[in-house]
């Protein structure tokens, strides 16, 4: 059984807000002393931390990046709010907004230069930032107060109401924090389940495929980090208003580690994980104080134990268990393909005034050091033509594809697409110009569903911006529904509709190829590059693939095909270019190429029967 995320969010929000809103008045209804003002402050602290962790979850669970400097970002927001309130007389709202924007800017400055390189690079930068930040706070005494910190921060006001966690003020600060926590929780959902969330996860799973679909990896990761930093800045400003005192001690490296532990223990990438993780880690720390000097040991042991039993975190592992329970065993059905439906007319539209050549390569050359992989290749493909590129393994075919799709920069020569010079653009720019591709070794977003993979392909064609998407404006909802419909139509087209909700990485190899074609078509390309689409297909499936390629060509799509199956090349192509050792050795219609002795020697290694007979006759 599975619970839809929307329902989970709604239920959590409804029940959570109701319980938390009631909490300050608990003793009025049930009697007793709970919650004391001390206990209420603890709940407030946990809520504020949860906001940081929700932000961190966007980064870790979404973009697959790690930050070990979130305590410093949290501290940055807190200090911006404190300094503005103390020194510039800013009220609650303006100082909060300034804290969020300021922290977002710092996030952008940290992330933009460091997310090019994947892996631990960003993590190290964030550690460095955290160390520098704390050191500045401690030593710049005249500005930050050093160890004695900034004290005497005035209480803020909202709509004339003084903000304090006390009963006299109607627990006003408590409700403001609760409001922001609920807001952060909802934004986390609208972000993660939007095209931006999908694009972020896509960049975490395959940089190449994301770029090929026009999703800029650098921009998407920077966005994730900036949003994540904004949450930390918001939480920092709320902390300032609660504590009315800030100094460096709250924002040290160990706190950054704790935030990361909360994220991972709760379940990175899940919606409820940050809340569960924050509560569990915070109270475990408190309860384990009973172990006195063995407290850290007990905490570490507990952590290791939980993650050993629940490797996806508490919420992640629970969800996986829930999904596996009671699920009915079923067979999947591969439908007949290609299957054209009217919805596809919106996705695959013919070009209005096609130029004479869709793709033109002139003197295209690629050198790796001393090795010339591609040597002065000329090639021209008409709109709606199927152009095959063949040659032995290592002839330079994939290098040509990689240059046209912007993954390699040509050493010499030019690439023109629909009459426009596009030489040496990067892969995301080539995707924007209308080039879509599949990969020889398939590059799917393995942990995403089959349908989500196709939806990532639509990323560049959305019109709703980030704000509209986050607030789920009608336009954004409408667009999301339309994209889902069109993505389903594309899955129908390649016969994979029945697989829509499956993990893409679990598909049989040949089906992964089909899914890559559907995903590439989502870009609404003008030129489709297919790198060995028939590898791993049976004869019957290859015939289906040939029909699919012909349908696309009839719709005006230009196709450049790298393939080894000779029968297929002969059946599907209008024109064949043969490469050997990076050089074009023959070019012409398939009927001519088939009998060219140079081609036969290079490609088959022996004279084909037809050619031998003809030679004998001459």
């Amino acid at each position: 059984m599975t619970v839809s995320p929307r329902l989970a969010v709604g239920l959590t929000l409804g029940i959570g807000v109701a319980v938390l809103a009631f909490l300050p008045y608990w003793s009025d209804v049930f009697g007793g002393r709970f919650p004391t003002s001390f206990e209420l402050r603890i709940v407030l602290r946990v809520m504020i931390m949860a906001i940081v962790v929700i932000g961190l979850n966007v980064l870790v669970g979404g973009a697959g990046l790690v930050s070990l400097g979130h305590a410093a970002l949290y501290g940055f927001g807190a200090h911006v709010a404190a300094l503005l309130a103390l020194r510039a007389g800013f009220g609650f709202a303006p100082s909060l907004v300034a804290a969020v924007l300021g922290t977002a800017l710092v996030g952008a400055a940290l992330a933009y230069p460091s997310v090019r390189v994947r892996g631990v690079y960003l993590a190290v930068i964030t550690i460095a930032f955290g160390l520098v930040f704390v050191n500045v706070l401690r030593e710049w005494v005249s500005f930050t107060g050093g160890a004695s910190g900034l004290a005497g921060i005035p209480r803020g006001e909202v709509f004339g109401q003084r903000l304090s966690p006390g009963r006299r003020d109607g627990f006003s600060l408590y409700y403001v924090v609760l409001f922001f926590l609920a807001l952060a929780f909802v934004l986390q959902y609208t972000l993660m389940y939007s095209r931006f969330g999908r694009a972020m996860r896509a960049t975490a799973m395959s940089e190449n495929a994301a770029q090929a679909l026009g999703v800029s990896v650098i921009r998407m990761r920077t966005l994730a980090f900036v949003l994540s930093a904004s949450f930390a800045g918001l939480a920092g400003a709320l902390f300032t208003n609660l504590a009315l005192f800030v100094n460096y001690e709250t924002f040290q490296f160990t706190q950054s580690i704790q935030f990361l532990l909360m994220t991972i223990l709760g379940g990175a990438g899940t919606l409820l994980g940050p809340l569960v993780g924050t509560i569990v880690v915070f109270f475990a720390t408190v309860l384990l104080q009973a172990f006195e000097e063995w407290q850290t040991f007990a905490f570490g042991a507990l952590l290791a134990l939980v993650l050993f039993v629940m490797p996806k975190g508490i919420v992640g592992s629970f969800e996986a268990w829930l999904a596996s329970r009671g699920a009915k065993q079923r067979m999947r059905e591969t439908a007949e393909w290609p299957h054209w439906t009217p919805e596809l007319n919106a996705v695959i539209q013919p070009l209005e005034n096609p130029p004479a050549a869709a793709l033109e390569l002139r003197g295209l050359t690629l050198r790796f050091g001393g090795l010339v992989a591609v040597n002065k290749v000329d090639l021209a493909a008409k709109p709606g033509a199927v152009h095959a590129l063949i040659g032995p393994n290592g002839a330079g075919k994939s290098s040509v594809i990689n240059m046209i799709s912007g993954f390699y920069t040509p050493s010499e020569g030019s690439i023109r697409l629909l009459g426009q010079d596009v030489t040496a653009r990067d892969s995301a720019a080539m995707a924007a110009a209308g080039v879509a591709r599949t990969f020889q070794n398939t590059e799917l977003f393995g942990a995403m569903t089959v349908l989500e993979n196709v939806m990532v392909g639509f990323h560049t064609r959305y019109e709703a911006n980030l704000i509209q998407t986050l607030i789920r404006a009608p336009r954004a909802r409408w667009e999301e529904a339309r994209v889902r419909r069109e993505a389903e139509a594309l899955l129908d087209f390649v016969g994979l509709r029945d697989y829509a909700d499956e993990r893409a990485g679990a598909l049989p190899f040949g089906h992964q190829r089909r899914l890559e074609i559907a995903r590439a078509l989502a870009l609404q390309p003008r030129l489709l590059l297919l790198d060995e689409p028939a590898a791993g297909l049976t004869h019957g499936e290859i015939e289906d693939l040939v029909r699919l390629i012909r349908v696309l060509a009839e719709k005006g799509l230009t196709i450049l095909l790298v393939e080894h199956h000779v029968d297929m090349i002969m059946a599907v192509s209008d024109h064949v270019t043969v490469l050997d050792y990076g050089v074009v050795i023959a070019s012409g219609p398939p009927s001519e190429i088939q009998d060219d002795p140079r081609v036969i020697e290079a490609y088959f290694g022996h004279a084909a029967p037809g050619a031998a007979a003809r030679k004998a006759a001459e």
Partner: protein
Amino acid sequence: MSDPILSVSGLKVSYGPITAVAGVDIEVGRGEFVGVIGSNGAGKSSAMRAISGVLAPAGGAIRFDGADVTRRKSHEMVALGLAMVPEGRMIFGDQTVRENLLLGGFSRVMRSDPEVEDDIERALELFPRLRERLGQMAGSLSGGEQQMLAIARGLISRPKLLVVDELSLGLAPKILDLLFPILADLNAKGLSILLVEQMASYALAVTQRTYVMENGRVLFSGPSAELAEDDRVLDAYLGRKH
């Protein structure tokens, strides 16, 4: 068959709620060369993964070399004498060709078995192109050479049964004309081989017996030479014009 090297009965494989293999019987006799063909999604690769111990089967029994091995892990299967040449080759690209070969005999290298070197030598005789590239990173090999390396690596463990998943994937005809005869040769020298192959024409030409799988089941099976003339096979796997 009296004493098959591999005997699979009622094999079931599932991924969570998805059934990929729904009860399959496959047998490979000693010294036999057996093929499995079928469309994508038929369950061929899933069945091979269960047989080689990469996946735990959801049901059924696997007997190998006279012993029940149903839930054995892949490294145990290698030690028992089953070598797998996986789909997509899965060579270690950042290690040299020689290191890849040594990893094929990992358990024996650990025991300092002196004969590993002899076996590497024999594998190199089979694939002279690998000898020229012994010190090269495996990732820099061409697709055909990588497939040769994957087969050579499988042979170093001195298997009683070689399981090959998708020999032809992404390879030019010239390379295939080289590789398939090598498998036939190995079989002629007594090695039992189970070959999963999309390019049915090649598989039917080199194997003695073939199973045709669809939708997680074996549709039919028989001597490869007979199946190559069978209308059902012609239609779906060899093309109508043959």
